[in-house]
C-alpha cells in the first residue's frame, strides 16, 4: 500500500485570459464543455480529506474562469482542506475576493510576469499587470496568506533585484521565485527562456541575499533551474508519493505534465474513488517506488532522494519515460542538456519586448509561441 497523498492539485479549468509563454498546461487542452461539474469536485474534496490530504491547490488555467469557484472553495473548506487559490487575478473584483474569503479561502498565490509593465504584458500576451497590482491592495484587506509568484527566465533575469524590490513593495507573506520549467508551452519557447550560466549564477546570489535581508518579513521560496543542476529535482516528491492532480475533465494524474507520456491511461473521478485512483490505478503505479528504475538510477545512492528525477522530462527529452532524467549529470543522455545549455550560452542576444496592443498583434509580432485557449 502506498502511503496517503498530502495534497490535491485541482486543475479546475484550462480556460485562461493570459497566454503566458511558459505555461505548464498541456498543448492539448480540455474544452469548457468537457469540464467536470461542481458536484464532482465537491465529492472529490470530501474524498481527498478522508484520504488524509491537507491542502487543495486550486489552479488552471485560470480558476476564476469557473463561475462556481466560491462554491468549490466553500466545499473544500467544509471538508477541512486548506484552500490555496493559484491565480492570475484576472476576473477577480474586490467583491468577488470578499466572497471567496468568506467561503473559507486560506491562501492566494498571485502570479507576476515582471516588475515592468511592458515586458509583463508581453510575456502574458494580455494587459494584466496593472490590475494585478491593484488586486494586491484588496488582498491585504483580508486575513489570508498572500504569496506573490514570479517566474524568472532569460528575458527578465537581468533585472532580478528590481523585480524582488517590486514584489517586496506589494507586501506579500511569501515570495516564490521560480525558474521556468520546460513543459507544455515553456518547452516550445525554451530557446528564448533558458538563462545563461552568468544570469543563473547571479540569480542564485541575488536570491540568497534577498532571503537573508527579508528574513522574518517575507519568506522566499526558490524553484531551481534543473538544467544547470548536477542532479535532477525530486519531481513531485516522487511519482505517486505525495501529490495527486485532477485535471479539468476529472482524470487523475501523478503530475501536471504526465499526459505527454505515451501509453499511460488516466482513470477518472467520474468512475472511481480517489482512494482507488491513488492505490490501484495503473498511472499512479507505473513509476511508483524503484522497480521501474534503469541504471544508473537503480544502484544510485541518491535514488531515494530524487527518485531518478522527472518522468515527463525524461520522455520529452529522450523519448523514454523510464530513462534517467537527463538533467542528472550521471544520465547517459545528459548530453541533450549540455547541448541546450551550449546554445543558451553561445551569445545570442536577449529579445526586445514587443509593445502590447492586442493579443493578435503581439502574437503576430513576437517570436513566442503563446499559449492559446481551448476552443
Amino acid at each position, binding site marked *: 500500500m502506498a502511503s496517503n497523498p498530502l495534497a490535491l492539485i485541482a486543475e479546475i479549468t484550462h480556460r485562461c485570459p493570459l497566454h503566458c509563454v511558459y505555461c505548464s498546461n498541456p498543448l492539448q487542452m480540455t474544452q469548457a464543455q468537457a469540464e467536470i461539474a461542481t458536484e464532482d469536485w465537491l465529492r472529490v474534496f470530501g474524498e481527498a480529506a478522508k484520504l488524509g490530504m491537507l491542502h487543495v491547490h486550486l489552479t488552471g488555467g485560470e480558476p476564476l474562469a469557473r463561475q462556481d469557484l466560491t462554491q468549490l472553495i466553500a466545499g473544500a473548506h467544509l471538508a477541512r482542506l486548506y484552500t490555496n487559490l493559484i491565480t492570475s487575478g484576472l476576473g477577480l473584483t474586490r467583491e468577488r475576493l470578499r466572497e471567496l474569503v468568506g467561503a473559507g479561502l486560506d491562501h492566494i498565490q498571485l502570479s507576476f510576469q515582471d516588475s515592468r509593465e511592458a515586458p509583463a504584458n508581453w510575456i502574458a500576451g494580455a494587459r494584466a499587470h496593472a490590475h494585478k497590482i491593484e488586486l494586491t491592495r484588496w488582498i491585504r484587506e483580508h486575513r489570508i496568506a498572500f504569496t506573490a509568484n514570479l517566474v524568472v527566465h532569460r528575458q527578465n533575469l537581468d533585472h532580478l533585484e528590481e523585480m524582488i524590490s517590486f514584489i517586496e513593495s506589494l507586501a506579500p507573506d*511569501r515570495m516564490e521565485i521560480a525558474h521556468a520549467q520546460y513543459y507544455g508551452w515553456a518547452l516550445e519557447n525554451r530557446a528564448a527562456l533558458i538563462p545563461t550560466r552568468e544570469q543563473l549564477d547571479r540569480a542564485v546570489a541575488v536570491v540568497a541575499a534577498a532571503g537573508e535581508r527579508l528574513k522574518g518579513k517575507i519568506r522566499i521560496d526558490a524553484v531551481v533551474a534543473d538544467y544547470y543542476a548536477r542532479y535532477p529535482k525530486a519531481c513531485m516528491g516522487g511519482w505517486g508519493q505525495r501529490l495527486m492532480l485532477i485535471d479539468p475533465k476529472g482524470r487523475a494524474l501523478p503530475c501536471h505534465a504526465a499526459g505527454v507520456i505515451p501509453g499511460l491511461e488516466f482513470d477518472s473521478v467520474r468512475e472511481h474513488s480517489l482512494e482507488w485512483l491513488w492505490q490501484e490505478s495503473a498511472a499512479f503505479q507505473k513509476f511508483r517506488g524503484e522497480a521501474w528504475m534503469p541504471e544508473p538510477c537503480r544502484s544510485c545512492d541518491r535514488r531515494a532522494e530524487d527518485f531518478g528525477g522527472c518522468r515527463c522530462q525524461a520522455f520529452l527529452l529522450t523519448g523514454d519515460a523510464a530513462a534517467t532524467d537527463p538533467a542528472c549529470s550521471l544520465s547517459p543522455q545528459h548530453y541533450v542538456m549540455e547541448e541546450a545549455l551550449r546554445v543558451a550560452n553561445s551569445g545570442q542576444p536577449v529579445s526586445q519586448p514587443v509593445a502590447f496592443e492586442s493579443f493578435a498583434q503581439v502574437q503576430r509580432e513576437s517570436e513566442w509561441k503563446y499559449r492559446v485557449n481551448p476552443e
Partner: protein
Amino acid sequence: MSVPADQSVPTLATGCRWATPEADDDQGERTVLFPEGAIKVQGPGRRILEECDGKRTFLEIVSTLERQYNVAEAGRIRVDAANFLEQLHDKRIVDY
C-alpha cells in the same frame, strides 16, 4: 530576526491555522497548516504554540508554561520558548 520581546504578542501568522479545533484533539500530535505545507507539533512545542492566541504577551505565556512544567533551571523555559518561536517566525508561521 530576533527572538520575541517580553511585551510582544505571538500569534499564528496570517494564513496559518490548526488543522483541527482543539476540542477534537487528544494530547498527542497536532498539525498546523500553512500555505505550502504543514508541521506537526507535540509535547512542549505544541503547548507553546497553543498559548500563542494573539491576546497574551510572550512574558505571560512563559509564566503560564513555567507553572505547567516544573523545570529546575531558572529561565530555561523562556529561552527554549523564545528559540522555538523564532524558528517559526523565520518560516512565517508565527508573528509577534
